[in-house]
């Protein structure tokens, strides 16, 4: 009981920076969701149920395009596939006797940041530590979305324009540090951006929806990289 409480407290403490970061980024998501024509309730529902940055962001474009549900499912599958790898990794870190319901609950909150913090914590992972992280991260993400959705309209256009780059800044902060240490990752990043630009510039490809473009490029480039540069068995397959 005491351990449980300590783990929860420790998780809450480590969750503070995640909470702050999430609030700023999801504020932008709330604004964008409203700009895409969603209601505040809908944007909050997305953040509470999906709890993911890239997937939600791509999801907005798919919703407003009125794309088939299958396109949404495939886009989310491809964009969020990395979570399954993190989930595999966390399953190794949990004690074998961890009950099923704990696994069902922990699964909800696997994000890049929560995974990064959980997997770096020494020793076996206590579910209550994860719940401590969730207790700050989930409200940070959801309330940030609510604030963006409700107060975003009150902000001047200049501020909206500025907040529009928050997510991209976060994405760059995720991809650049590992790319700096690994030339293959640097190459993958550059090739991805070049092809993304080509899709934008070539008229025949310009009409492809953003969700489909993401799926095509991810499968092709990550697939090619996996064939050309297989990750060594010993390498730690984890993302920040």
């Amino acid at each position, binding site marked *: 009981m005491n351990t449980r409480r300590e783990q929860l407290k420790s998780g809450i403490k480590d969750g503070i920076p995640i909470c702050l970061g999430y609030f700023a980024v999801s504020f932008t998501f709330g604004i964008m969701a409203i700009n895409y024509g969603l209601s505040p309730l809908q944007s909050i529902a997305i953040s509470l149920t*999906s709890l993911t940055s890239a997937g939600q962001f791509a999801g907005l474009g798919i919703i407003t395009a009125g794309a088939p549900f299958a396109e949404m499912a495939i886009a*989310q599958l*491809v964009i969020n596939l990395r979570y399954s790898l993190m989930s*595999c990794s966390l399953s190794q870190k949990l004690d074998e006797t961890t009950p099923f319901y704990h696994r069902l609950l922990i*699964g*909800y909150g696997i994000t890049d940041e929560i995974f990064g913090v959980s997997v770096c914590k020494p020793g076996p992972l206590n579910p209550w530590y994860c719940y401590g992280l969730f207790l700050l991260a989930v409200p940070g993400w959801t309330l940030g979305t609510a604030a963006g959705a409700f107060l975003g309209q009150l902000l001047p256009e200049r501020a909206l324009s500025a907040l529009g780059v928050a997510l991209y800044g976060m994405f760059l902060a995720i991809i650049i540090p590992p790319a700096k240490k690994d030339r293959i990752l640097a190459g993958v990043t550059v090739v991805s951006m070049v092809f993304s630009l080509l899709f934008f510039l070539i008229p025949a490809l310009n009409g492809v929806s953003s969700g489909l473009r993401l799926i095509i490029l991810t499968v092709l480039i*990550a697939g090619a990289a996996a064939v050309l540069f297989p990750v060594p068995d010993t390498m730690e397959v984890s993302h920040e």
Partner: protein
Amino acid sequence: MNNRIYLYILVMAAVTYFIRVLPLTLIRQEIKTPFIRSFLYYVPYVTLSVMTFPAILSATKSIWSGAAALMVAAILAYKEKSLFQVSIAACMVVFVMEFFL
């Protein structure tokens, strides 16, 4: 349309949840297939790169403020600043630059 939006939200949530929870509950052993391991390893880098560029250039009122945000964010990210710091710095660059554009 409203109901359709909630259906989209349901699809998003369900797919995302199953991706996260299935390995945690079903697969107890480490993934050994080199191709799948490698593919999953590269996925986030490709996805985030494709989503960031060139989209960041059209995210703001002017392509120049977007480009400045890209440069500043890239430099700070290279210096391994936190997600929060990089994100806020990019926003501030756009905010300040658009006073002059």
